[in-house]
């Protein structure tokens, strides 16, 4: 059997995938440390400060602790699904990184290497597909635990994620009308050296942001694990690294949804106040790409800090409030935004004549 496969591109993509996955994991690891530090600052405490300077090795210590804990699989649970749940949660969290453009391109070994794993035609819809798959990790885990509280938590989380996908999609339609493309790379390209999409779609961004919080199961929408009502939510029965996977998936989700939001609304790897094309002439392609990667990273960290800030500022919603907000406020608002944007786009095509 003769295989006709272009090995260089497979190698190139493989390296990129490993870098992106490892990067997501490390950033998620330090997001847990960041979260504890932000919480400490907001509550006038010190936060983790024992492991290493300023507690910098705390995530490693936490990981070790989780690995060494006893793994418990409940007797009456379906074992395969019980293990599949956290794996699916982790898998779907990491997969979003495949379509995010992490930078322009590097010129190495006489070939251009795009810093996006896959520039697919459907771009942002892929993100939606993966997000809708994320429900299964939670539902399967909650059901397989064979525990009423877990099942309640799982059902809450699933209905929350499904409900908030709708306004998210509707807010996105308005953005797609403005950009005219689904590919994230093309969207970032359209914002390069132009105004960012946030100024064209402020309402759309607000709706998208609220929905992103709900999709990540973050406070104020973390009803899936409301301790005072549900013991521990869908991961009540989980212990050791399987619990760690669920908790970790949340941070990866947070990181990658920040990356998607930055790409959609805040210019992605665009360097603000500089003309990127002129910079490439001055510094060369590779250096500009590295700076762009750094700028993207700074933007993402700002979003992560915002996520944490909100978590320690706003109390948890009640479940009926959550559903009312999703179905009765965000969806009509998103439809209004869509109609308004459509009208404005049509007017602009008509050169501002009715």
């Amino acid at each position, binding site marked *: 059997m003769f295989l006709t*496969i272009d090995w260089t591109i497979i190698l190139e993509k493989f390296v990129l995938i490993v870098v992106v996955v490892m990067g997501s994991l490390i950033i998620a690891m330090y997001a847990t440390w960041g979260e504890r530090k932000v919480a400490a600052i907001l509550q006038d405490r010190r936060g983790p400060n024992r492991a290493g300077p300023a507690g910098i090795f705390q995530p490693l210590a936490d990981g070790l602790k989780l690995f060494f804990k006893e793994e418990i699989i409940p007797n009456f649970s*379906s074992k395969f699904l019980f293990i599949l749940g956290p794996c699916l949660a982790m898998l779907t969290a990491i997969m979003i990184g495949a379509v995010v453009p992490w930078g322009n391109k590097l010129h190495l070994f006489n070939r251009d290497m795009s810093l996006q794993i896959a520039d697919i035609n*459907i771009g942002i819809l892929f993100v*939606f*597909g993966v997000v*809708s*798959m994320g429900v*299964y990790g939670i539902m399967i885990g909650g059901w397989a635990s064979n525990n009423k509280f877990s099942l309640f938590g799982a*059902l809450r989380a699933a209905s929350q994620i499904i409900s908030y996908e709708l306004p998210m999609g509707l807010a996105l339609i308005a953005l797609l009308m403005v950009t005219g493309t689904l590919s994230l790379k093309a969207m970032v390209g359209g914002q390069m050296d132009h105004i960012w999409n946030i100024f064209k779609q402020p309402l759309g961004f607000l709706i998208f942001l609220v929905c992103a919080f709900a999709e990540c199961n973050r406070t104020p929408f973390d009803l899936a694990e409301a301790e005072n009502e549900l013991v521990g939510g869908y991961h009540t029965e989980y212990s050791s690294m399987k619990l760690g996977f669920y908790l970790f998936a949340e941070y990866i989700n947070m990181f990658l949804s920040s990356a998607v939001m930055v790409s959609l609304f805040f210019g992605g790897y665009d360097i603000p106040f500089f003309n990127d094309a002129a910079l490439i002439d001055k510094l060369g392609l590779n250096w500009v790409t590295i700076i762009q990667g750094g700028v993207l990273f700074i933007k993402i960290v700002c979003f992560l800090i915002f996520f944490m800030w909100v978590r320690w500022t706003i109390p948890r919603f009640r479940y009926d409030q959550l559903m009312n907000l999703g179905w009765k406020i965000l969806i009509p608002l998103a439809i209004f935004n869509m109609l308004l944007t459509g009208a404005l786009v049509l007017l602009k095509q008509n050169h501002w004549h009715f």
Partner: protein
Amino acid sequence: MNITQILFWFLSVLAIVGAAGVVGSKNPVYSVLWLIVVFFAISGHYILMNAQFLAIVNIIVYAGAIMVLFLFVIMLMNLNADAEPAKNMNLKMAGTIAGMCLMLVFVAALSRSDEMNRVSQMNGGDIGLIGYLGKVLFNDYVIPFEISSVLFLSAMVGAVVIGKKE
């Protein structure tokens, strides 16, 4: 064998194994999960034919939304193994034979048709891409498209009427 063929065979086997799993699983939750595997395999086939939009809509709508509703219903119904009525062996045999007959009819009908001689275009063509699809839908087929959306609206109104408390 190039990479497209390898993927084609892999996805085909996955789809058939998944479909067998849907029918063969004792626990309905496992059936639903196998069905999701089948949807993924079929989406993979769409992608091989470069119908990316169709593939992702299949995943979002069927695997992502409808199957979640299935899971909801099955999990809340609390189907236990002992609560399920024992199935008659004769009934199983009859079902198998009926299914085989249906397959025979399909194969016989398809083997005579012209469609069999047409080889699908792999890994190329932009018919399945979203830009082309949108233009076709809103230029050539705009009336059927709008009528089907009215159908959806009426279904939604019907669901609300049925679900409303007296």
